[in-house]
């Protein structure tokens, strides 16, 4: 209780921000600085599609000034009942305090027709867009806009922080592109189709998955055909999200001589990425480029 009271006290005068996942929380901290108090609902190691709608989240959302959600059905399985319980007009669906991270994002993987026989397809496109740093700039702008509306006094600060963040991304982008340049066109395997934005940004091909269809766990026949394809195409790198059971990826890796690279979309999801969004992309670019270099 004492800790709660302290936390409440330190939050006085700050915008109370709730982000559904740790990546949005990290960017919110970049933009808000010490003007905001940011909480992420999902832990960085959790599967963001399957978060428990814990009653405690209702209390958090009830007190929030700004809610940042990824949208595109990322939180479809759990956010709606929490919002209904939270009864907070500041963050209701169309309120300015409800940031839909995907506003203005050019969504990839928007299906021309939706049919669940093809697995759990998102009608609004692939929701894992934030891993493209250029999209992070757009999300940061969406967040800065919401913060400015929530507390117009600090408008200049948010604007300056936004500019600084976008410039940092631009500067790092040159480095990242340089690091990834030798691997243009390289093919990788992932567990789930959550990397198309990263692949497009850095010229990679991440089109083979351990899942036979989105949301369907690997089957022996699918794994067998994947192993064969990997051998034929000499694919030697498998991306494994932090929340996935590594056993299957390791077994495929041992059959194909590939290496597995622990990855995450969320700062703190893998060791050494706790420092925030830019550190996370640093980690991904480093570890993936190293794995690709070693695989040659």
């Amino acid at each position, binding site marked *: 209780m004492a800790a709660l009271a302290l*936390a409440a006290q330190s939050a006085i005068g700050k915008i109370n921000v709730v982000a559904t996942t740790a990546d949005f929380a990290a960017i919110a901290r970049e933009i808000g600085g010490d003007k905001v108090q940011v909480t992420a609902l999902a832990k960085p190691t959790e*599967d963001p599609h399957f978060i428990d709608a814990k*009653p405690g989240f209702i209390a958090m959302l009830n007190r929030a000034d700004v809610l940042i959600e990824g949208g595109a059905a990322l939180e479809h399985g759990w956010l709606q009942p929490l919002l209904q319980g*939270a009864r907070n007009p500041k963050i209701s669906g169309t309120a300015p305090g409800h940031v839909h991270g995907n506003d*203005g994002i*050019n969504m990839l993987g928007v299906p021309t027709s939706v049919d669940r026989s093809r697995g759990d397809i998102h009608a609004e496109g692939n929701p894992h867009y934030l891993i493209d740093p250029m999209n992070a700039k757009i999300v940061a702008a969406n967040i800065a806009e919401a913060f400015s509306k929530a507390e117009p006094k600090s408008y200049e600060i948010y604007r300056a922080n936004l500019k600084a963040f976008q410039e940092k991304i631009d500067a790092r982008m040159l480095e990242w592109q340089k690091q990834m340049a030798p691997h243009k066109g390289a093919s990788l395997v992932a567990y789930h189709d959550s990397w198309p934005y990263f692949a497009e940004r850095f010229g990679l091909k991440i089109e083979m998955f351990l899942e036979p269809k989105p949301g369907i*766990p690997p089957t022996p026949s699918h794994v067998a055909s994947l192993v064969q394809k990997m051998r034929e195409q000499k694919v030697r790198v498998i991306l494994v999200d932090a929340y996935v*059971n590594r056993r299957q990826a390791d077994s495929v890796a041992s059959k194909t001589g590939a290496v597995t690279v622990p990855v995450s979309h969320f700062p703190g999801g893998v060791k050494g990425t706790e420092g925030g969004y830019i550190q996370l992309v640093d980690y991904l670019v480093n570890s993936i480029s190293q794995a690709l270099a070693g695989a040659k």
Partner: protein
Amino acid sequence: MKPNLVLAFCLGASAIHAQQTNEVGALKRQLQEATEKFDRALQEHRKIIDDLNRRLEQVQAAQTNGRDRSLVTPGATNMVETDQSRLTSAGKGLRVGTQGAYMDIGLVGTFAAGTSTASDVEGGTQLGGHDPNQRGFTVQGVEATFSGAVDPYFRGMANVLFSIDAGGESFLELEEAYLETISLPGNLQVRGGQFLTEFGRHNPTHPHAWAFVDTPLVNARFLGPDGLRNPGARLSWLMPVPFYSEFSLAAQNSHGETAASFRSTGHVHDEETEDEVPFAFRHADNDRGLKHIDDLLFAPRYAVSFDVSDTQTLLLGASAAFGPNSRGGDDGGDTDTQIYGLDFTWKWKPARHHAGFPFVMWQTEAMWRKYDVGEFNWAEEEDGQIIDAGTGAPALLPGETLNDYGFYTQLLYGFKPRWIAGLRFDYVKGNQGDYERLDLTLNGEPLGRDLGRAERWRLSPNLTWFPTEFSKLRLQYNYDDRKSIGEDHSVWLQFEFILGAHAAHKF
């Protein structure tokens, strides 16, 4: 970004002005500054062009998608509130309607197949109205759900359930249909319409979201085969504290077949068969309407939740339901029922989970019912079949208070993605009433204990497999022990599909 453009032009202009001064040093300095500024402006320009190109691509992409998307410009206030894509982004299910008028539609079909050593499955071993009701196949329910925001003030939902009983007769039930406020001040929320009473954990849950094939015994006995639900209104208050703490109070009609312990007969689909012994051995009398406010059913509930650790959550609740019942006796006198319940839910889910697995969830509900009955004289009934064997005359049943209690406790273990193993223990018991001590007979047969209140227990292990979130296969075994009837074994295989919108599950 627009001010930057202006800035860039001004800088260029100031550089030209600088050339008109004669001091070389100042000129050089200014030139250097201007060059720096120009470089910076150039960079900003490039960024603006990049952003504009990006936006152009987006607009073109959006147009090819036939969407009217709002685009975000930093610092600008051009957020389009009626963005249709935002409306569709709320659900991945079926959504019908044009801009501004829409609703989510979903359909859940739940079926069972199996067998039992009991011959009285419907209403005997299986008390729930949506339980498997016969050997062979059962349509447990086909639920259609309609939901959406009504306007900026209300959200609406309706749940209509279609089922077929053991006799092959079809039933259409309005499970729920209510309006709920979206943003009342003071952390309040009001619901009005037909709804499941928020009593404990199981009662407000729709059949497709149950962790077992059937309703717990204590729920079916005290809150009715179809659950306690009726037209009414509910006010809830989320307390302004740093943890979840909510109080609610519902007022609902106390009559109708879905108010079992109140002014209802308490039978599945309200049918009392010829040879069926009524609850407390007396007929229900519920044709009385609403005379005063006491004739309503009142149901308060308080729930509180804490995270006991990073991976463990606890939810505790206390519920009650108060109202008049239908066994006031021949003189139609008022008798009341009081039901009290406590519930406990504990869930463990590790920080690293895939598709929500693994997890362990333990849920327990205990209830106590105090049911007043009035004096009942079978001599005054046209069909005076219940006879007092001592006197040979139609029975005269005393007025008294009947106390019943029961609980269920269930453990679920999601041991690998898409697989859940469950174990539930049910127990119900009623204190022997004075009417049960009389030497009564029906059609010459001694009555003994009231089977609607006699002690029984049940143990139910089960295994559930979810091929995806939208389908389910469940195998369950029930070991039943009914005092004065005996032991029974049942095996049920449940299968279910979901089409269209599927609302996210609550905790």
